[in-house]
């Protein structure tokens, strides 16, 4: 049923986009001395908290530098993308066409990102991706005006293979949801684990967002691998870790995963998550001065504890501040602006990182272990991890 609904609504979105003139190649932008910044983020639905954290982060980074971009005042625009892929193009073109934003910051959901991406490529508007890890945006479909401050889906798992092998794990089973993010996370794990010398005994999967793990857990128990590696997030992650423990596997076969497995779900999962090992580009407990300083300031300003999403938003803000400072707020000077954004170093709460040629962070990945309901950092799992950027030809 979903597909039929999708086709219908995508079709409608396309018609809508065409009628608003999105498909015209050039856009005449309104002249004003304010910089127009648009947020296209989920403010309702399952990812609402993520959208709020990202916006908070962006605003905080800009406020810290005096609340202006390159000396110019900012006018803000907001669209709730509802994490609804079928409305991606429509919502993005609303910001670009109607509100005439100079910068579009969004979004969380990879499917919606593809809609934004289409609009960004066609209109040439500057787009900063504060979360969505969909590979295409910084690979085959990369664009000079699209920058990502978060990760690609395979980046955290690119750091997973080596520490697992170093712990004596030779044979591992992989399990995930069969959808783009799951497949892309597997790519990173397979590459890093086989390169380190391990063997992926079996790749298990189930359709998103089903959580009937029974047959697969039985299979894992009978395969008796040295470890299981996985990619799950949110509510399915809770169910998976609980079922994994309930099936009696937790104490026999260690569980590893992309760090999103244990982000924001440790309260709900409880003891079933104890000892789970993950890799991610951030952890609340990261012990560096920049992180302490950030966490304190964020908690004071928003009366909330920041998470990885707030950090990604914060870095999006920092990237904008740096880029526009270099061109003194002249958004029209694209060449110099993109150059500055490409070459800058971002001093992030996750540690310093730089931008790859394909506009994706080159960043350290931390090895973390769940201890007493917290992600404790054990060390760096892999230094300066870059996404391959395969197929990206920026100047074509």
């Amino acid at each position, binding site marked *: *049923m*979903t597909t039929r*609904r999708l086709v219908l609504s995508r079709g409608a979105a396309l018609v809508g986009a065409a009628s608003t003139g999105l498909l015209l190649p050039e856009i005449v932008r309104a002249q004003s001395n304010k910089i127009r910044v648009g947020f296209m983020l989920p403010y309702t*639905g*399952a990812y609402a908290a993520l959208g709020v954290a990202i916006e908070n982060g962006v605003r905080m980074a800009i406020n810290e530098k005096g609340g202006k971009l390159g000396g110019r005042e900012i006018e803000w625009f907001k669209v709730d993308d509802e994490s609804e892929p079928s409305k991606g193009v429509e919502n993005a073109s609303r910001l670009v066409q109607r509100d005439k934003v100079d910068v579009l910051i969004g979004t969380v959901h990879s499917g919606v990102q593809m809609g934004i991406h289409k609009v960004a490529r066609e209109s040439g508007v500057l787009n900063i991706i504060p979360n969505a890890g969909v590979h295409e945006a910084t690979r085959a479909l990369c664009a000079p005006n699209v920058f990502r401050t978060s990760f690609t889906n395979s980046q955290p798992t690119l750091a997973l293979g080596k520490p697992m092998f170093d712990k004596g794990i030779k044979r591992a089973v992989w399990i995930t949801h*069969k959808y783009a993010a799951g497949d892309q996370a597997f790519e990173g794990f397979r590459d890093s684990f086989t390169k380190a010398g391990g063997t992926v005994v*079996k*790749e*298990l*999967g*189930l*359709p998103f*967002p*089903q*959580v*009937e793990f*029974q*047959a*697969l857990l*039985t*299979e894992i*128990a*009978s395969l*008796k691998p040295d470890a299981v590696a996985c990619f799950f997030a*949110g*509510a*399915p992650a*809770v*169910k998976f870790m*609980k079922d994994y423990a*309930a*099936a*009696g596997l937790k104490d*026999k076969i260690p569980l590893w995963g992309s760090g999103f497995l244990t982000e924001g779900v440790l309260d709900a999962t409880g003891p079933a998550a104890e000892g789970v090992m993950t890799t991610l580009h951030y952890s609340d407990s990261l012990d560096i001065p920049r992180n302490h300083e950030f966490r304190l300031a964020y908690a004071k300003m928003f009366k909330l504890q920041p998470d990885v999403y707030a950090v990604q938003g914060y870095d999006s803000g920092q990237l904008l501040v740096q880029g526009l400072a270099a061109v003194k707020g002249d958004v029209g000077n694209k060449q110099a602006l993109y150059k500055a954004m490409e070459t800058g170093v971002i001093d992030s709460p996750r540690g310093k990182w730089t931008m790859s040629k394909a506009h994706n962070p080159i960043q350290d990945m931390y090895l973390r272990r769940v201890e007493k309901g917290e992600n404790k950092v054990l060390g760096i799992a892999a230094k300066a991890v870059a996404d391959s950027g395969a197929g990206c030809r920026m100047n074509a």
Partner: protein
Amino acid sequence: MDIANFLIQLLNSVQYGLLLFMLAAGLTLIFGIMGVVNLAHGSFYMLGAYLAWSLASKTGSLALAIVLGTALSVVFGLAQERILFRHFYRRDHLDQVLLTFGLIYIFEDLRSIFWGDEVHGVTVPALLGDSIRLTDTLSYPVYRLFMSGICVALAIGLYLLISKTRLGMKIRAGAFNHEMTEALGINIKFIHAIVFALGVGLAAVAGMIAAPVSSVYPNMGAQVLIMCFVVVVIGGIGSVRGALIAALLVGLVDTFGKVLLPQVASMLVYVLMAVVLLWKPQGLFKQ
């Protein structure tokens, strides 16, 4: 695959198959007796699951939630039969498809308004939370045995009701010939309402007992509906016995497919359907 693993996967298959049967039986009964193609059948499964989650978290007891939830969903089903479906018995199948397709969207939106878009978990009752150890690595959860037990009990009950009771006789007569049955002084409207409520009840119970193992999430009805249609088509439209055999077959293919051929698992069930239809275009047990 060693023998213990094989046996447990067999249990997993049967358990999944029985659950599908609960849904397919209602679907095929409603079609066979009233001639209504009910695309919204999966929504009753979803309704059951959400009721189980809501009521279990309020009352703290899954058993109580199932009893209350069944009653509520049967009332809901009866109301729908009265307000909507009754006007569509004699209509074209296309009209019915349009009506029930629209209902899917309405139910999804109502679900979103009342219960939100998040995924929820339902805890397995402590009494049934254990596992039975079969070998040193493999064990089977008690709750799944309980699920299978409920399904078997309801299947037997359904069989007895339809083939051994007076009411069952009337139901069969109504399926065979509307006018004649009515002429004999049997209240066919009442029979229809009963069958519809039965179908809704079976689907809702399936959703309720499945909630702890499958979680409760948006769109779960649509996903399960597709499987149900596969089962009904393989089994032969209108045949309850066919639905049972087909459901077990689909359970086997799906479970062993997931484990043995994970790359193509999601399409194996459809391959099965295609093969069966080539061999028997009317399904296995067309009456």
